[in-house]
């Protein structure tokens, strides 16, 4: 995705006999274009490429002429933004472990709750899900249908309209039934919906989850940075999951979100099916990016 646009830049670098100042400038332009076409935030693109350019120009030209040096600069800058691989969520056996999923409308939260449930089920944990989405018609039915396919319990209450109450009550029920991990789905919301952002803060304060995960649509463009920033202000955001990377989306919004929040990406969604879910490997991701 982001890889395909950078691929051309890298190929150009490899084809050069050596890299001089003009070549570096031309490469920086190419790199900027590749990152912008991949939806990375404009300001971030310039910040990243300025860092790379400075390093490349200041290094002894002999060394800078080596193309692998330039490629390493790009690699390191991307890894710096993505952050290293996040340590796995600390699941304390025998204690309540709650994971809360939040994000913008339609980003793929409900689907991802089911995928995450399957992931932990496969690791041998007793998993349950809770829906606190009292807004979207069919939200409860959607999570039930997704989880019954893998034999995972879904807690919810169609008669309760208060999301905070339902999140707390249903999670308590799940804990009493000795589930190790409880994954909580929430209604979609964006940073302009102040009341919904406050509701999300209250849900987190009442649940005290082990981790809050922001689910981001792979197609999210220039708005990724400021939206992620607001979610990180309203919660103790722990990590990000990017969805829909199986399509034409390049996923640059994810880079912006990492830069805005300082958290890493744990998983990526690569399809609508419950097993179309992978752990995010930043080094592998950047490695494939740069060929």
């Amino acid at each position, binding site marked *: 995705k982001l890889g395909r646009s950078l691929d051309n830049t890298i190929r150009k670098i490899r084809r050069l006999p050596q890299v001089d100042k003009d070549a570096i400038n031309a490469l920086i332009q190419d790199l900027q*274009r590749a990152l*912008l*076409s*991949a*939806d990375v*935030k*404009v300001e971030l693109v310039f910040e990243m490429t300025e860092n790379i350019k400075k390093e490349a120009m200041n290094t002894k030209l002999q060394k800078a002429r080596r193309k692998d040096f330039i490629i390493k600069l790009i690699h390191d800058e991307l890894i710096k933004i993505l952050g290293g691989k996040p340590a796995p969520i600390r699941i304390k056996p025998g204690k309540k472990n709650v994971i809360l999923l939040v994000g*913008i*409308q*339609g*980003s*793929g939260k409900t689907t991802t709750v089911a995928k995450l449930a399957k992931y932990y089920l496969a690791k041998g944990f007793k998993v349950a899900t809770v829906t606190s989405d009292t*807004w*979207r*018609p*069919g*939200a409860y*039915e*959607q*999570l*039930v*249908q*997704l989880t019954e396919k893998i034999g995972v319990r879904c807690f919810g209450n169609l008669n309760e309209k208060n999301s905070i109450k339902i999140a707390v009550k249903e999670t308590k029920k799940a804990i009493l039934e000795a589930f190790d991990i409880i994954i909580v789905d929430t209604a979609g919301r*964006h*940073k*302009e*919906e102040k009341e919904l952002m406050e509701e999300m803060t209250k849900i987190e304060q009442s649940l005290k989850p082990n981790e809050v995960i922001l689910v981001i*649509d*792979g*197609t*999210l*463009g*220039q*708005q990724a940075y*400021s*939206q992620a920033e607001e979610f990180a202000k309203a919660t103790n955001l722990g990590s990000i999951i990017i969805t*829909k990377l*199986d*399509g*034409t*989306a*390049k996923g*640059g*919004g994810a880079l912006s979100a990492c830069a805005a929040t300082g958290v890493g990406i744990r998983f990526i969604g690569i399809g*609508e099916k419950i097993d179309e879910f992978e752990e995010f490997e930043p080094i592998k991701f950047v490695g494939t990016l740069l060929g």
Partner: protein
Amino acid sequence: KTLTEKKMDEAINDLKLLLVSNDVAMDTADEICNKIIDSFKGEQIGRLTSTKKMVFDTLKDVITGILTPENEVDLLDEIKKKSKKNEPYVIVFIGVNGTGKTTTMAKIAYFLKKNGFSIVAAASDTFRAAAIEQLSYHMNNVGIRVIKHSYKSDPASVAYDAIEHAKAKNIDVVLIDSAGRQVSDKNLMIEIQKICRIAQPDLKILIADSLAGNDALYQAREFDKHVGIDANILTKLDADARGGAALSISFETKKPLLFIGVGQNYEDLIPFDRDFFISSILD
């Protein structure tokens, strides 16, 4: 390069970045800038003229051109015409996953019902979990019957049944919901082609998320190529989306942007105001 050429390059570069930061796709931003450059070919740029001002004045014309389709669509008028011939007006809602197709269809249903039309809905998303329940809840709120089959049934046959029902009961409009699909999924593109071939819709509407960046362009391009888009609706503009996707999609399809979604309620669908949009993107 001459000083004026350099100034032009700078102004164009600044403009390109401004467009991209407002969510205009890279390729579309290129096309817009090329059009502006072309319009200046052979012109004398006076020493006292502000290059930047010239570029921005031309930009307004270029954007207006992009947002002015070859043929406008007056939805209510089009439906009335068909209703006079005693034929149902068929609309299909198309788009990638999660853009707001089902919710927008409910908003359109609400709008059309308010304008006195009779409507029937087709639950042609027979794939996604609770898609039929979600649509049924919405249509029940608006007071519209839903034609549905079981999950995994053929989406095209649900559409067909709804149209036959509309013909038999003399219903003005058939609204067809479809499953979200990625344009890179060959089988799903074949499926939407089949739905359109069977339903022969009067209007194929692309529902696109205004928060999408460059992907909006690919969505418009591929759907237009595979089924032919007749109109566009941009959703989630209440999320502080800058609306650049409106330019990418309009440039690609050359079809009218009918409405914009500005929230999750039925009234949160407003007609696209071209002049207001242009003044805010140029701000």
